[in-house]
């Protein structure tokens, strides 16, 4: 596992920050972001997929009432891919519409989807070698979050009560300028804080330009509860150099 990894630094891998507005579609945006980034890594081709399609064509038919990333992946498999965001754009309202999946050409598709083992080391390894993954966390502390690394406890952020899906795009350790003086029983020691970088779906005016950071190594806010990812295979004829996560 490398010391740090930030897929935002790889050109075209991470699409712009979305704003879910009054629709509870974090699950669809997270899954779409996962597929977009994997598609770019495997095919070296930038795509923005339609998450409105995921909402409209969800098997429960009420995508704006909340959902799960595995529902999104099932929809992608059922419809053999996703249309582009340009062709099938987000409606920015709190309701879904008639499924129009068959009307548009597919720009990306998946082979399968999996849940990763729940350890943070394994998640970091997968993230660094394969690409961004989705996680579902307890979002309680995000209401008042502005910037920095959230280091929660199970009391301040219950890891069992997860209710918000986001895309995990990197990890690292805090730089010295934002380190705090930690008081130990023996002496004053300076520590660096390992963190995850997560892409949220509340617009660029929230958090760190739409992103936030959570402590890594303590299952902060239940980050290890549902680490899911689509599986996108590399085209057989294209034998390009392996894409690695920029540090």
């Amino acid at each position: 596992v490398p010391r740090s990894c930030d897929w935002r630094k790889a050109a075209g891998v991470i699409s712009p920050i979305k704003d879910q507005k009054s629709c509870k579609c974090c699950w669809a945006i997270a899954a779409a972001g996962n597929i977009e980034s994997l598609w770019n890594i495997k095919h070296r081709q930038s795509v923005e997929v339609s998450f409105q399609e995921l909402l409209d064509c969800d098997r429960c038919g009420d995508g704006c009432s909340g959902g799960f990333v595995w529902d999104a992946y099932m929809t992608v498999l059922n419809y053999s891919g996703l249309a582009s965001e340009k062709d099938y754009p987000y409606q920015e309202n709190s309701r879904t519409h008639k499924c129009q999946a068959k009307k548009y050409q597919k720009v990306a598709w998946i082979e399968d989807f999996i849940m990763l083992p729940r350890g943070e080391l394994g998640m970091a390894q997968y993230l660094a070698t394969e690409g961004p993954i989705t996680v579902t966390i307890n979002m309680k502390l995000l209401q008042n979050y502005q910037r920095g690394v959230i280091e929660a406890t199970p009391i301040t952020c219950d890891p069992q009560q997860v209710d918000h899906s986001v895309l995990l795009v990197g990890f690292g350790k805090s730089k010295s300028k934002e380190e705090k003086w930690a008081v130990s029983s023996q002496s004053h020691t300076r520590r660096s804080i390992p963190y995850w970088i997560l892409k949220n779906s509340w617009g660029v005016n929230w958090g760190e330009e739409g992103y936030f950071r959570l402590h890594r190594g303590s299952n902060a806010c239940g980050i290890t509860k549902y680490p899911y990812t689509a599986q996108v295979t590399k085209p057989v004829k294209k034998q390009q150099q392996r894409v690695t996560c920029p540090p």
Partner: protein
Amino acid sequence: GSLRGQDPGPRPLKLKEVFTLFQIQYNRSYSNPAEYAHRLDIFARNLAQAQRLQEEDLGTAEFGVTPFSDLTEEEFGQLYGHPRAAGRALNVDGKVGSGEWAQS
């Protein structure tokens, strides 16, 4: 009597002034004075909560005014969380890496 003595520096903003800045920044308006007072009260509680979080947090996070500062915790959860989590989640527990899926 010195100039320094006459200039105490910038004074802290009052709650209503901070709330007005919040309304401008996030384009918020309220339908009537009662609603305004209600949202101001929630805003004040959230600022206090942010201060508590700031003190409790072990990392480097900063908490304060955000686009959601005029919402109660319950409203925030209802608007942005997904309530299907608790019931559905149980069905997939224990399936890590097995490749098997719960039937329900």
